[in-house]
């Protein structure tokens, strides 16, 4: 094979050289013929032959050698230009030929074009996503690869490492002074979508983030009008609060008027002054939309005590590496600086490490969901493209069998094999381009879908198709054109002329192609991989949906009334009264709220699932210390709740009893299952004594055991948790107002808001969150996985079905004659149908087996992405294999049934 390639290259060179010498010889011949004719003419007119020749050369205008060189040059040029023109004309003819061919077989062509459009479109769309999320980095950030986000690595109570990007401002202040390997350090907070803009009825939620004054210059950008913040504005007691508005908000609220700078707005009930406008699409170093920037308020509070909560709304540090400094060097230096300046007195925190991670990483320092999703999207869409290519190659090969005669005739008529190859490659390129053109529409749709469904928080500034996506689409289109063209073209151009012509009108019988069988099976392998992925993720998602969180999160609404600030000049006594009224508002109205139609129950709680956890020191008589569990803070968590809490939230009682009216102010508590098992193993905890806050506190009696409820994560280690009555522990105050509405929680929000506003018309805005909405972001990875795998798997399945269908259809058509003869000889149509279907079904079964093997081999990679699902789940693998084979059975049955329409008489007449 290699020999023949080298030979081919040598031949091509030899050909070029020979062509050049032919051109030169022709040019010389023409020149000498001119000179000779001229000489003859002059001799005819009476000159001596010698004089005539001298005169003929003189008339050339220059010495013979120079004239020859000139003429050779012009001949060369002529040949070059003409061969290009010829090439273009041939290409044009080839394209027209390809288009005619596609139009002649509309069904065949539309299969191919649709398949390609789906594959190319999906790939282009995915590139658009990855380009934004991974490749280009956040908009307006200069050299994002020299920026690091600072992570804090702390050893947890059970010795495990806890990484967090949420860092105390105190550390930031120290780093800014002490770290020497950064050219700049800034602090910012991620966008929070719960900031209220405006007043009264027109109040709405916007997304606001905060940042230190050096943030923009650190990233390498600037405001488009006004200014960013100054350091003095980072002080909590700054006299005049200021904001920088985002480009989008500026366009929406101020119609793009530059005079917006200097105007004031009402933000969370207080007036703020706009000092600047951020550039279009600026989202800091994250990708989420930011409507508005506020100065990061740096309070110089007690040393770092806040850690391990991994909250995504915490403040993060971003730093730019000095030129030539690596992230590792800078991390080491930052850790030294941190340890040198830490004065909090906590041993674990004093030993914590800092490290700089890439911007694409998430809050825990590992790959963010967006990054992971985009990487998978690319991989999966590439698989779909491969499957589509395999499919099309197969179809083209099938067609090339039909075209053998045409190719043989062309060869017999003197077309070179190279010329034929070119014709066929042009044809496949034309198909690929047609697919790509339709694919752009697919890309626009798929891009929109993925953006809104899978990555809704990212601020997309451009449409799904931009110049870079187009460039990428062009590249994959050319790649596809070559991939789908090479094999059929080589095969077609190797036709043996005499045998193909001899075969007459009938095509050479049933010589099955190994390549084609391999392609059908290979396609099935790819489809199988995607199907297994889809199955596993769907199962994970199902597991999550049926997870017992210890709270019915979809039935619970948390209400947060917010009031305006009191006007300046309000007397202190009124201020105090109003503050007290607001503080006890929830407690005052919870009974009224419970009586409201549409409300099933309502309760108060300090500390609830997905809503904040608290811990106070706890002692148990007879034990020196309590065991520490990896999932906890150290001390067991505590919630202070009103009586109706459990009924409202849906946490089930396992043993004993819940709080009751008769308890009054007596000190009673409920513990969760884990706490019961950990502190009183093998014993009934009811009646046991808890000493809350102090060792000499009064006994709090355990009256019951409730099921475990999640603290904040879907995946978390169980922790000890107990519940006491609200109001008994002064440090646990300011409860959340929780409501269990009748009917759908989301649609009841309006009613609940109205109810609160009726009770107190001075409320400015009622924040209302269905608890499930706090859980939902955590399920995103699985939802995304299930959705994209399913999407791609369906695509691959369709592609595989189309492939099988058309292969069998061609098979039947190609063996029409044989079938006719067999029918004439008494074969039963049913047997022949089975005969036609057997191959493709067997191939897809082989493919399913192969795909299952690949999926099992790769199970390690996906295992970490699944939720309580084994990557080798036999139900999933068996199920999707059955599905794949069933689909290929259906896809091959339909065309195989055409056997019944074959007329034996026609076949016999041919004989």
């Amino acid at each position, binding site marked *: 094979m290699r020999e023949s390639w080298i030979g081919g290259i040598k031949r091509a060179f030899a050909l070029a050289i020979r062509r050049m010498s032919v051109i030169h010889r*022709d040019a010389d*011949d*023409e*020149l000498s*013929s*001119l000179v*000779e*004719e*001229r000489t*003859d*003419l002059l001799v005819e007119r009476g000159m001596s032959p010698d004089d005539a020749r001298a005169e*003929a050369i003189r*008339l*050339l*205008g*220059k010495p013979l050698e*120079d*004239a020859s060189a*000139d*003429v050779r*040059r*012009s*001949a060369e*040029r*002529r040949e070059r*230009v*003409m061969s290009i*023109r010829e090439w273009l004309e041939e290409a044009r003819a080839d394209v027209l030929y390809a288009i005619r061919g596609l139009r002649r077989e509309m069904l065949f062509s539309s299969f191919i074009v649709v398949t390609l459009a789906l594959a190319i479109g999906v790939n282009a769309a995915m590139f658009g996503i990855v380009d934004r999320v991974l490749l280009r980095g956040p908009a307006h950030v200069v050299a994002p690869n020299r920026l690091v986000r600072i992570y804090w690595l702390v050893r947890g109570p059970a010795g495990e490492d806890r990484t967090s990007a949420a860092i105390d401002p105190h550390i930031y202040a120290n780093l800014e002074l002490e770290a020497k390997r950064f050219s700049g350090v800034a602090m910012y907070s991620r966008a929070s979508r719960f900031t209220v803009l405006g007043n009264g009825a027109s109040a709405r939620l916007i997304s606001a983030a905060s940042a230190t004054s050096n943030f923009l210059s650190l990233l390498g950008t600037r405001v488009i009008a006004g200014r960013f913040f100054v350091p003095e504005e980072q002080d909590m007691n700054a006299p005049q609060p200021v904001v920088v508005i985002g480009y989008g908000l500026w366009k929406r609220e101020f119609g793009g008027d530059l005079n917006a700078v200097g105007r004031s707005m009402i933000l969370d009930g207080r007036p703020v002054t706009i000092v600047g406008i951020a550039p279009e699409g600026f989202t800091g170093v994250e990708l989420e939309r930011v409507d508005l920037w506020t100065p990061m308020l740096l309070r110089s509070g007690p040393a770092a005590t806040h850690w391990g909560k991994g909250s995504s709304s915490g403040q993060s540090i971003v730093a730019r590496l000095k030129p030539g400094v690596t992230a590792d060097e800078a991390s080491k230096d930052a850790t030294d600086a941190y340890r040198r300046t830490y004065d909090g007195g906590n041993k674990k925190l004093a030993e914590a490490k800092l490290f700089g991670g890439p911007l694409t990483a998430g809050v825990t320092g590992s790959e963010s969901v967006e990054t992971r999703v985009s990487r998978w999207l690319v991989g999966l869409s590439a698989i779909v493209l491969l499957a589509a290519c395999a499919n099309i190659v197969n179809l083209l090969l099938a067609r090339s069998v039909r075209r053998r005669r045409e190719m043989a005739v062309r060869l017999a008529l003197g077309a070179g094999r190279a010329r034929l190859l070119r014709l066929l490659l042009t044809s496949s390129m034309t198909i690929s381009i047609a697919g790509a053109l339709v694919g752009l529409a697919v890309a626009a749709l798929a891009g929109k879908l993925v953006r809104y469904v899978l990555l809704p928080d990212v601020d997309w500034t451009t449409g799904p198709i931009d110049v870079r996506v187009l460039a990428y689409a062009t590249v994959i289109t050319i790649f596809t054109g070559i991939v789908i063209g090479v094999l059929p073209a080589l095969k077609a151009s190797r036709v043996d002329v005499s045998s193909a012509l001899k075969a007459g009108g009938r095509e050479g019988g049933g010589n099955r192609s190994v390549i084609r069988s391999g392609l059908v099976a290979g396609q099935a392998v790819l489809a199988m991989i995607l199907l297994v992925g889809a199955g596993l993720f769907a199962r994970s998602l199902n597991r999550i949906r049926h997870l017992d969180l210890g709270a019915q999160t979809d039935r619970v609404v948390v209400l947060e009334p917010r009031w305006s600030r009191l006007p300046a000049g309000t007397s202190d006594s009124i201020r105090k009264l109003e503050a007290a009224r607001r503080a006890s508002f929830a407690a005052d109205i919870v009974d009224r709220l419970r009586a409201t139609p549409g409300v099933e129950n309502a309760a108060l709680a300090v500390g609830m699932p997905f809503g904040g956890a608290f811990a106070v020191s706890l002692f148990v008589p007879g034990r020196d210390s309590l065991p520490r569990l990896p999932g906890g803070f150290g001390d067991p968590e505590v919630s202070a709740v009103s009586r109706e809490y459990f009924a409202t939230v849906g946490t089930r009682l396992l043993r004993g009893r819940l709080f009751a009216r008769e308890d009054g102010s007596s000190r009673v508590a409920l513990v969760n299952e884990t706490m019961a098992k950990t502190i009183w193993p093998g014993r009934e905890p009811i009646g046991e004594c808890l000493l809350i806050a102090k060792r000499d506190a009064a006994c709090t009696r355990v009256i019951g055991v409730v099921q475990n409820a999640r603290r904040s994560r879907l995946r978390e280690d169980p922790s000890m948790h107990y519940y006491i009555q609200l109001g008994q522990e002064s440090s646990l105050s300011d409860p959340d107002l929780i409501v269990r509405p009748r009917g759908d929680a989301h649609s009841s929000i309006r009613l609940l808001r109205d109810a609160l506003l009726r009770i107190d018309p001075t409320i400015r805005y009622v924040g209302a969150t269905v608890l499930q909405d706090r859980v939902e972001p955590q399920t995103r990875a699985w939802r995304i996985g299930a959705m994209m795998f399913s999407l791609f798997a369906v695509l691959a399945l369709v592609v595989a079905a189309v492939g099988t269908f058309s292969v069998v259809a061609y098979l039947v058509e190609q063996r029409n004659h044989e079938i006719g003869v067999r029918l004439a000889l008494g074969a039963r149509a049913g047997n022949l149908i089975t005969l036609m279907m057997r191959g493709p079904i067997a191939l897809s079964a082989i493919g399913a087996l192969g795909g299952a093997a690949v999926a099992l081999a790769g199970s390690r990679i996906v295992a970490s992405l699944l939720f309580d699902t084994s990557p080798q789940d036999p139900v999933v693998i068996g199920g999707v294999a059955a599905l794949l084979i069933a689909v290929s059975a259906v896809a091959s049955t339909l065309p195989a049934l055409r056997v019944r329409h074959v007329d034996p008489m026609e076949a016999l007449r041919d004989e």
Partner: protein
Amino acid sequence: MADQLPVVRGTLDMLVLKALSWKPMHALEIIAWLEDRSGGRFGVDDSALLQAFHRMEEKGLVAASWAMTPKNRRARYYRMTPKGRTHLKKEMDKLAEYNEMLSAILGAESP
């Protein structure tokens, strides 16, 4: 021999095409035709003319193929292509119009 005149730029193509409009010719036949019709005032070097033919071939105005002369010598014969024919007609029309304009201006008898 009369004084030779340089050929005005862009008109050489026209002259060659005109020659070929009668019949296909080889290089010297074209040159001789032009010399005869110009009364010997046609002053372009033979080698330059040969290059001009190549250029015209390149532009698709003429096409060439090898054939035998009456004296049984191999020569490259040029013939006018349809594109050449249209080109000739267009250029001649343009030139006629230009001449008309020139003579209208130069023949003016009042200021």
